[in-house]
């Protein structure tokens, strides 16, 4: 055994036609095979922990982990949001479903590929969560974000409507007015569907779709009345 080092961890869940991880690896450590929709497999004996595949993955589905054998391990997670955390900050780690696992401390940053802006955040974590920690919870600036911008409906109002029994975008629209504004729900419908999915477990694709009625854009009554 050599010295303790980082190894890539592939958290790729979807069989989609995508292979930058395989082609970017300078050591041939990632294998996809003839069918490009195969999920990548790591040959850990070839991986040197350089992190190039982490930056190359368009789905930020690769992280790195360094198992120390002691109480604390290291994970390196691609982070593509502002504001970036600072070294020494305590951040919340999440699993691939976004479920909070625990806290970690930011140790350093790295950019594996100078031509790729993706930054890896290296975090010291408790060894009990190393296997599952694949993301850093984004710093939330507003804890009650606006959902329907036209009618000024906040997330808490949507959640309240779901608590009262609403299960469709249409029902929430009738109760809260979310989606009844000037943009005709173009911005908020999808957000509302995702909140329903999060709160009830009914997937956004399984919900009854909201009704779509013309006009799809803003027009004046004058335009309608002209022959």
């Amino acid at each position: 055994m050599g010295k303790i080092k980082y190894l890539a961890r592939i958290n790729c869940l979807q069989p989609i036609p995508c292979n930058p991880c395989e082609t970017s690896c300078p050591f041939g450590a990632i294998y996809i095979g003839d069918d490009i929709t195969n999920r990548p497999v790591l040959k850990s004996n070839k991986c040197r922990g350089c992190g190039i595949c982490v930056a190359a993955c368009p789905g930020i589905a690769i992280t790195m982990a360094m198992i120390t054998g002691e109480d604390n391990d290291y994970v390196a997670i691609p982070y593509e949001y502002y504001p970036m955390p600072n070294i020494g900050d305590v951040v919340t780690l999440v699993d691939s479903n976004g479920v909070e696992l625990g806290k970690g401390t930011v140790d350093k940053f790295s950019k594996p590929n100078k031509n790729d802006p993706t930054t890896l955040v290296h975090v010291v974590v408790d060894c009990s969560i190393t296997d599952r920690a694949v993301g850093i919870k984004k710093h939330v600036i507003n804890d009650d974000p606006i959902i329907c911008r036209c009618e000024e409906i906040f997330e808490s109002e949507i959640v309240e409507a779901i608590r009262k029994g609403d299960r469709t975008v249409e029902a929430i629209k009738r109760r809260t007015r979310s989606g009844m504004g000037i943009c005709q729900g173009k911005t908020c419908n999808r957000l509302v569907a995702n909140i329903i999915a999060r709160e009830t477990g009914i997937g956004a694709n399984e919900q009854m779709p909201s009704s779509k009625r013309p006009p799809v854009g803003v027009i004046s009554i004058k335009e309608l009345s002209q022959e």
Partner: protein
Amino acid sequence: MRIIKHPILGDVKEKKKVNINVDNRQVEALEGEPIAAALMAAGIRAFRRTIKTGEPRGVYCGIGQCNDCIMEVNGVPNVRTCVTLVEEGMIIRTQIGLGKSGDLDD
């Protein structure tokens, strides 16, 4: 939003300047640019105020979808400034709530 230099589109050629009136203030715009671009270039970021909380709103999506950048243009409320091009002498007003139409002189 006013793009002068772009890696794909190239540099903007000399453009004719037009004057617009924004809340009784003269603002210089480039012919053919969206109203929102002219306002942003002039340092104006609050285009309207919402009806419930009175919060300022401005450019959000920038492609005509979200209707967050609506203003009163030549007496017509709810005009999406990100997809409406400037014209010489346009009279533009900050919109409160759903806005008012018609009389520009009140």
